[in-house]
């Protein structure tokens, strides 16, 4: 019975990239064989990923302030989808450049002074305004840890860092309603399981009035725009700061939201 179980356990509990371990340590998930592929990488076995996915989903529902759990859920369930996204980026000229150059959005890489000096209505200026009004910073995004491929780790990192950009593009604030709308847009655009789960489970805590507005107006609008727009991961935002937000919206086919969602100036 143990002999039947052993190979199954090895697959479930083995680390990515690890050679067949010596007889002594078949169940030890952590060993010197599987090194990290990038800084912050924590190699995990399929079993650990499954447990993490279940645990993080439960915790995120239980305590919506655990944003780190949403990130973990995304990382542990997104491998297949990230591959599709990465391939799609490779086929697009702007996307391919992003994959090559790997730009990052953080206060250390952004020239906030320059963004401030840009004309009103430009992407850069409006992005900065969004950060100010909602009192958020691009630095709160945790680094990727559980994706076992360093290029895919960058793709999910990019998706996370672009999230604020999407708020700006869609004109959605960072309250629960705004976040759900953006999640629906992202779900349609990326197909990431975490976005789909977030889109469906996010509204659980909403009151009936908000739910009504969401279902009748905002979600259909988000879906429509999500389907119409090209993949938002293929936009090199850092080269488009001067572009007028209106022009960018037109380029992407993003229409004005059906109503003003409270919060964004």
């Amino acid at each position, binding site marked *: 019975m143990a002999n039947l179980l052993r190979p199954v*356990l090895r697959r479930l*509990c083995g680390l990515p990239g690890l050679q067949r371990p010596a007889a002594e340590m078949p*169940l030890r*998930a*952590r060993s010197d064989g599987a090194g990290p592929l990038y800084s912050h990488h924590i190699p995990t076995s399929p079993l*650990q990923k499954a*447990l993490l996915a279940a645990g*993080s989903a439960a*915790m995120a529902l239980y305590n919506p302030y655990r944003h780190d759990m949403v990130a*973990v859920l995304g990382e542990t369930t997104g491998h297949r989808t990230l591959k599709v996204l990465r391939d799609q980026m490779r086929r697009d000229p702007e996307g391919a450049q992003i994959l090559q150059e790997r730009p990052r959005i953080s206060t250390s890489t952004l020239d906030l002074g320059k963004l401030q000096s840009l004309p009103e209505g430009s992407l850069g200026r409006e992005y900065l305004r969004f950060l100010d009004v909602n009192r958020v910073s691009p630095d709160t995004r945790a680094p990727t840890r559980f994706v076992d491929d360093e290029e895919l780790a960058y793709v999910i990192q990019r998706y996370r860092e672009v999230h604020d950009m999407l708020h700006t593009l869609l004109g959605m604030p960072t309250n629960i309603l705004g976040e759900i709308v953006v999640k629906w847009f992202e779900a349609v655009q990326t197909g990431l399981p975490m976005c789909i789960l977030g889109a469906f489970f996010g509204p659980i805590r909403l009151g009936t009035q908000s739910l009504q507005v969401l279902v009748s107006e905002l979600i259909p609008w988000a879906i429509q725009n999500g389907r119409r727009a090209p993949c938002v991961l293929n936009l090199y935002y850092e080269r488009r700061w001067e572009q007028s937000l209106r022009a960018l919206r037109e380029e992407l086919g993003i229409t004005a939201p059906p109503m003003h969602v409270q919060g964004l100036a």
Partner: protein
Amino acid sequence: MAAPGSCALWSYCGRGWSRAMRGCQLLGLRSSWPGDPLSARLLSQEKRAAETHFGFETVSEEEKGGKVYQVFESVAKKYDVMNDMMSLGIHRVWKDLLLWKMRPLPGTQLLDVAGGTGLAWVLGDAEELPFDDDKFDIYTIAFGIRNVTHIDQALQEAHRVLKPGGRFLCLEFSQVNNPLISRLYDLYSFQVIPVLGEVIAGDWKSYQYLVESIRRFPSQEEFKEMIEDAGFHKVTYKSLTSGIVAIHSGFKL
């Protein structure tokens, strides 16, 4: 010892105990961190280049204290919750058994090192205790000695501060004696514990360190010999839960 509020633990043992415990002079020692400048100077100069283990990593002896300190800083907030979740509450039974073995009486001078979330405490270093010789009747350390950089020094210190006739008691993770249970225990330790740490406390690495440091700790027999080397007599041990933990006991004559 690292239980939520020593009083709660005492009442666990029944009213007789809690009355007895209230009569004891209980001192808990927090934060065994051999990283302060004094102990760094006292640790012999030759050891500076020496290496030791930090879980499955290799680090310099100087580094280890600081790294262990960081781990416990990190886990402190959710310490009790995590202990309950990881051991399914069984850690309370283990600590109970330790207390039973101890059978403290009113007037017993008891020192609990690496006291965790216990009561009245003193800050110090297990490898260099801030107490005079021959002071305590009982010295306990529960789930602490594993993290000390120089276990032999901690044992020597324990010997020093105990009165003649005093007793050393250590509750610590040990080696599982049953091969099937060992497999299951490994599986649980490495697959589940770090995940629990991440989901509940947002901290994978500290709990990875925890399960690795357990594997690094000497076996029941080896630890018994270390205790004897520090000068203790009548050293015995009792394995609990198939050897997942063990209570070691020794006397200073």
